[in-house]
């Protein structure tokens, strides 16, 4: 894993040889293809360390989007990368790090998961990807935990943003330990999306 950080090794990589397949919209009728039991239960509900991560997806008119699919992928609380299998067939105890939630008629999504820990000293975040009918291709973003001001201030992405942009990437913490994170595909408080 340390090789990921080695820029010297990066310089030795060969040129890409294959053109990528282009993405397309998820369309309106994905639920019957992508649904599976407990898909939003990254952690077993109410187990030790389990929290709710929830929010609403909005369009440019401020209306909730009822046909979006949100996926999250995050480290475990100790900062380790989950390698356990079973994201598709939950065994109710393995933390696999991955979950999927389809928005309901009110545009709401919800996960049971754990707070990701810091990996390699970085500000902890969930990687998230957004799909929706009407959205021509996927969108990547990050859901940062609101605590640890020092690491958030040092984060290369967050520190490159102005205050209002930065606010779109940091979740808010509820009194019960839950995380709230809204996603705005368009408009004044449009979520900052990422390309790599």
């Amino acid at each position: 894993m340390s090789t990921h950080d080695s820029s010297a090794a990066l310089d030795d990589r060969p040129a890409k040889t294959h053109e990528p397949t282009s993405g397309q919209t998820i369309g309106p009728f994905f639920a019957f293809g992508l649904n599976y039991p407990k898909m939003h239960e990254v952690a077993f509900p109410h187990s030790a360390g389990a929290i709710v991560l929830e929010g609403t997806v909005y369009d440019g008119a401020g209306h909730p989007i009822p046909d979006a699919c949100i996926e999250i992928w995050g480290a475990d609380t100790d900062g380790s990368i989950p390698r356990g299998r079973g994201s598709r067939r939950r065994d109710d105890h393995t933390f696999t790090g991955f979950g999927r939630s389809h928005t309901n008629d009110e545009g709401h999504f919800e996960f049971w998961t754990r707070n990701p820990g810091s990996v390699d000293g970085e500000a902890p975040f969930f990687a998230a990807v957004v799909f929706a009918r009407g959205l021509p291709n996927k969108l990547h973003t990050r859901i940062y935990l609101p605590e640890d001001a020092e690491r958030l201030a040092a984060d290369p992405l967050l520190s490159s943003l102005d205050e209002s942009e930065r606010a779109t990437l940091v979740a808010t913490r509820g009194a019960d330990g839950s995380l709230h994170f809204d996603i705005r595909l368009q408009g004044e408080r449009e979520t900052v999306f990422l390309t790599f």
Partner: protein
Amino acid sequence: MTVDSDASEQEAFSSSVVLDQTVAAPETLLASHDMPTQNQITQEINDLHADAERRLAAGERVPSTLYDFAPYRSSILRHPTKNPRLVDPETIELWSPAYGQRDVALIESDLTLQHTGEPQGERMTIEGRLLDSWGRPLRNQLVEIWQANAAGRYIHQRDQHPAPLDPNFTGAGRIVTNDDGYWKFTTIKPGPYPWKNHINAWRPAHIHFSVFGSAFTQRIITQVYFPGDPLFPLDPIYNTIRSQKDRDRLIASYDHDLTVPEFSMGYRWDIVVDGPDATWFEPEGGEA
């Protein structure tokens, strides 16, 4: 919330509070606001492709799939207006969820065996490899598909197309790639699908594909099409992909060697996931 038994109060309650907050049912959102003609949509498509070419020539970074693509009417309020931030993928983004052969039963890749009878339509197979930008096979990756039936009808409860449902066809399947990155589905060729983007709008026959790569940045959902479909130049969704070369890559090849005598038509299609340079390194600890 308590419901008062007084009828007049209930009425006042429902009209002043509940209706104001109720979100439109998703099926009512499926029709575009203006229902333009096909000619107008086709013109808009051509104009946007030409515009993308101009921006490219001017040195702009233009994505392969255009997000701001008004001929696909429901995208108008759902595409970001700001350019995405270019970032180096970090830590978790260079890994992806671990899947293995045991996560999916073999029978889940045969969409013709999910019911007691044979589905209606043209039986077909589609197979290929999942590769990265360097042509390396990606093993143990989850591939999920969903599609309409032979009549162009989705089993989804909100599909209002008055074509028959097939009691022997659901239209969803999944598989985990093997050590060569290989996957294969047996299914029924989907029919073209009418929708309400504009007057006389029809989607070319397609199968939706959802694929994971070895890094989360490679996650992709796309659609595969079939050779020679006359609907290609008319379809705003297919044409959200700005270049002909990239659009062609979404069309499976008919392969007579994969056609099984007196049984099924054979198609081949490879999927290449994109990835930043850092994905050249394979994460350790891949599942066997």
